């Protein structure tokens, strides 16, 4: 589904990614983990073509993404911080994104799911962080694309919306889609992901199931397993 080979990226003097090789197969939920500033978002933005890599190759669904924008039709992306133009109304934004991509009716179901009806006529600048995140989720999930990339999807969500989000992600997985998630909420990751990818100092440190990670680090639970990687590497 997604293949990354020898990916390098430097921001000024800061080497963020130094030789990432990663292969993500079709179907299932993959969690990308790592300490703050380890390059998770950079990795994701490279796949989306928002960050231009210094070196390396990325292929999505068998196509090289360089000088190509069509492949983004196949990706639903949830950005980390919902930075929307503040003078647009929620309704206008949803309509605009639909015009850009393709018509869909899925948004109505999602708006109902996240109880967004009262906010449809409000301007995006006046919404709370959590409500913005819900709008963000609607925009991401309303298209039926085979690859879904979620950057910190849980930010700002209340417990009930979090449960709805988990159900939503599981339903997408059941349809045979590939979901890539970054998150710092370990319980969330442990509950929904099939496989985790751990990035440390710009490289893939570990890739495999949670069970495999526990055995590797000799820790009984997931949170401690992650913590032990971090303390062992002084990160």
């Amino acid at each position: 589904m997604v293949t990354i080979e020898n990916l390098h990226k430097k921001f000024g003097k800061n080497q963020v990614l130094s030789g990432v090789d990663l292969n993500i197969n079709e179907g299932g939920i993959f969690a990308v983990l790592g300490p703050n500033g380890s390059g998770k978002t950079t990795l994701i933005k490279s796949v989306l073509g928002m960050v231009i890599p210094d070196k390396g190759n990325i292929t999505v669904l068998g196509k090289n993404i360089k000088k190509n924008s069509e492949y983004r039709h196949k990706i639903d992306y949830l950005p980390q911080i919902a930075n929307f133009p503040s003078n647009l109304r929620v309704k206008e934004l949803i309509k605009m994104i639909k015009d850009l991509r393709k018509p869909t009716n899925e948004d109505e179901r999602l708006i109902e799911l996240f109880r967004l009806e009262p906010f449809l006529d409000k301007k995006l600048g006046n919404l709370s962080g959590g409500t913005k995140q819900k709008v963000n989720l609607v925009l991401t999930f309303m298209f039926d694309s085979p690859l879904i990339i979620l950057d910190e999807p849980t930010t700002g969500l209340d417990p009930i919306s979090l449960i709805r989000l988990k159900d939503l992600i599981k339903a997408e997985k059941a349809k045979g889609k590939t979901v890539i998630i970054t998150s710092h909420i370990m319980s969330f990751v442990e509950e929904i992901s099939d496989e985790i990818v751990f990035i440390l100092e710009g490289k893939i440190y570990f890739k495999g199931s949670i069970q495999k990670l526990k055995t590797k680090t000799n820790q009984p639970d997931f949170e401690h397993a992650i913590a032990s990687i971090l303390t062992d590497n002084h990160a």
Partner: protein
Amino acid sequence: MRSRWSYVYFAFYLLLGVVLLFLNNDLSKAVITLMNVIIVLVPLIGTIFGVMYYYNSQEFTELLLAQPIKRSSIFLGQYLGVALSLSMSLILGLGIPFVFYGLFESSAIWDFSLLLITGTFLTLIFTALAFNIALSNENKIKGFGYAILLWLFLAVIYDGLFLMTLILFEDYPLDKVSLIGTMLNPIDLSRTLILLKLDISALLGYTGAVFKQFFGTSFGLIVSFVMLTIWVVMPVLRIVFKSKKKDF
């Protein structure tokens, strides 16, 4: 945001056009006054609006970048959106009062068209330059600073330096140097073009005669427009090039 300001800009030109034409009653004087305003104001507004629009729509740009749209179409679309709406404000704002004044029967129609054409060129040039500055500077304050400096340089400082060179080397034949110097600055080029068209080149003395010989011919006119076009195309190409390499 953008549309509200372009209405204000439009209203300003409308008012300026009406006042100059109907209170003055001398068409060629009105055109000269307009020229002085356009030469200074159009680049300033183009620069400021360009930078302001780019920084204001940054969030929107990031939203678009994740969608299946080519980068070049996002940025060229934004550039054309600003540049064309400013040009429309200029053309309509000045054009409407002139049409009511009876422009089509007057002999000043060519002078006036030249005024609008150079005004549009200046808008396109300076909006493109402003986008270039904004693309290269993440820091808004720096971006605004550079944009204002660029305007100040081309509108004021360049002339000063140019004049000083002419005085310093007055013992040498300077026709070619001054011609080239004028060509390299879009503001000077526009001013010279309009002044010469208005047939007041006698005021410029000897250099004026040389200029008249060059710009007055159709060859000179074509070369000038080619120069202005180059001034538009170069920064636009850089927008496309730079936007392809930028990280968001």
